[in-house]
């Protein structure tokens, strides 16, 4: 279980440049409930890290030490924070820090600390020119990475990098039309982007979603997207003919699509058309049986 297998770095206790520091070993107290047995390399680095914390040293060697601790335990937020404070205190090369983060991120894309650290560095640097391509590289590893999307929104909004957003969104939906994170991003651009959201824009987006629905009619996300877009435009579903056309197109093909039925149900409710509402609820209870009780509730609610 040694995590030291692929690098032959000596322990800190064996390095002459650290001889002046007295390591502070782990103290679990007299009767530990959960005594922590570390592997040797982590215990070694941690005991030097504790010593540094006690003296508040800010130096180049601290950067190396925190890199070791973080490399062995990327969720160690105390080590990240100490590194950040040290980098700022030393006025270190922040571009080198971005490279450090990228290497860490490739191995631990879901570790929140990495993203938070990158945000702090970029914020200080005031240069976000590499960030969208960095996020794209991370999304190529996992296109639903929650941290990556959150970070992307921060960068795009703060530095006004809206130009490539819809292009990237479209590319990612082309790769996986079911990726809800991408649909969320598309909506976020419509809502927050520099272009005012107009009725014409709404029509374009419904046409876009309809095209994507044709690829996978049972995909929940574009249907939800249409609802959101219509609401954003301040309209109601029943008053947008394109939505009705979309739903009826499946009837014409003799296809049962529960999401289309659910949309038609909402339109019938808007029109206060009780008999259609009930008919559709019965169809949904049959074709989406796991939520049968929900559709039964909708039928009662409409009466």
């Amino acid at each position, binding site marked *: *279980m040694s*995590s030291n297998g692929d690098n032959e770095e000596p322990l800190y206790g064996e390095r002459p440049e650290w001889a002046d520091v007295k390591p502070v070993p*782990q*103290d*679990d*107290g007299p*009767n*530990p*409930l*959960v*005594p*922590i*047995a*570390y*592997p040797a390399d*982590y215990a070694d680095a941690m005991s030097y890290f*504790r010593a540094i914390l006690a003296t508040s040293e800010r130096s180049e060697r601290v950067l190396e030490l925190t890199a070791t601790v973080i490399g062995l*335990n990327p*969720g*160690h*937020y*105390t080590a*990240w*924070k100490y590194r*950040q404070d040290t980098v700022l205190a030393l006025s270190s090369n922040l571009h080198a820090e971005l490279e450090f983060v990228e290497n860490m991120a490739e191995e631990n894309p879901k570790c*929140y600390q990495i993203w*938070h650290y990158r945000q*702090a560095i970029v914020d200080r640097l005031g240069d976000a020119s590499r960030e969208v391509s960095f996020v794209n590289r991370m999304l190529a590893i996992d296109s*639903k990475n*929650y941290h990556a*999307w*959150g970070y992307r*929104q921060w960068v795009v909004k703060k530095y006004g990098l809206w130009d490539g957003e819809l292009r990237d969104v479209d590319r990612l939906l082309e790769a996986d039309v*079911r*990726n*809800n*994170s991408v649909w*969320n*991003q598309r*909506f*976020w651009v419509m*809502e*927050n982007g520099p272009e005012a959201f107009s009725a014409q824009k709404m029509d374009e987006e419904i046409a876009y979603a309809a095209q994507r629905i044709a690829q996978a009619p049972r*995909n*929940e*996300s574009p249907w*939800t*997207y249409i*609802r*959101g*877009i219509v*609401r*954003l435009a301040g309209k109601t579903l029943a008053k947008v003919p394109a939505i009705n056309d979309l739903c009826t197109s499946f009837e014409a093909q003799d296809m049962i699509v529960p999401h289309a039925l659910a949309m038609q149900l909402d339109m019938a409710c808007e029109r206060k058309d009780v008999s259609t509402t009930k008919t559709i609820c019965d169809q949904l209870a049959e074709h989406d049986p*796991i*939520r049968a*009780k*929900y559709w039964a*509730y909708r039928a009662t*609610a409409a009466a």
Partner: protein
Amino acid sequence: MSSTSATSPQPFLLDLHVQFILGLDKKQDEFEYWASEQLRLNGVLWALTSLDLMNRKAELKRQDVIEFVLSCQNEDGGFGGSVEHDSHIAYTLSAVQIMMTLDAMDRLDASRVITYIQSRALADGSFSGDEWGEVDTRFCYITINCLSLLGRLDAIDVPKTVQYIDACRNFDGGFGCRPGAESHAGQTALAIVGALELVEADKLGWWLAERQLKNGGLNGRPEKLEDVCYSWWVMSALSILDRVHWINKDSLIKFILESQDPETGGIADRPGDYPDVFHLVFGVAGLSLLGYPGLQPVDPRYCMSRYITDKLPKFNVDWKGVNKE
């Protein structure tokens, strides 16, 4: 509640789960054990709550747990995930919940905890998790949960926090972890505990019900895999909204029971995977919410036994799912 034993693939393996928990401490030579050091306090909470829901709380040595929890408290009043770790709001809540479950609140210096939580408040009503500054709707939930357990909701500006949570509500009715972030079942559960009155119950209830997949399991976001932990996050939210009946309970119970490890005990994220204490507690709590027999009734707001939270003063919000028998 309906009887489910007829459809169960295997019974609930209570004794085996107790053995699984008691064996956790013996795994110290495994990589995952030390790599999760900063989570240790949460691990203790999950283990204790699992045991409590299974009526086996006495299996953990009460005094040892109390001393361990207290050793994680820092100068600033908050708790770290383990001894000598910086304070984080999440571990601070875990500490309070453990002390409450062990009926040891007299050992806790509550005023210091409250001071710490107040220090995490930001101007927009949100909260940062630690001195470093991560912001997430989870931390609004944690704050409200923790202060309500301490009977001190007056210590923060609740309406402002509610306003912040509202800003995280999305076009699909769910909630993300920051304004604009994708809706996520976990965040949604936490958000509505914080601010039930601003929820569109039917729209949100439907989004939550849509999380159920054909095999009975629930996912956290559309087109993601099902996971036992969402049995808790989705179900607790539906329970508070009084809409648990919108999903298929029997198939979800079956899914959770199938995720048990029949050899080692414990529950995994889904059938066939390795079990851990995180999925164990949310699996057991999910079963309790579903009315599975032999378990303590669980409070969907706190993921703690109802007999504990029943002692709390009542909120000024109508918690339908909680008060309904």
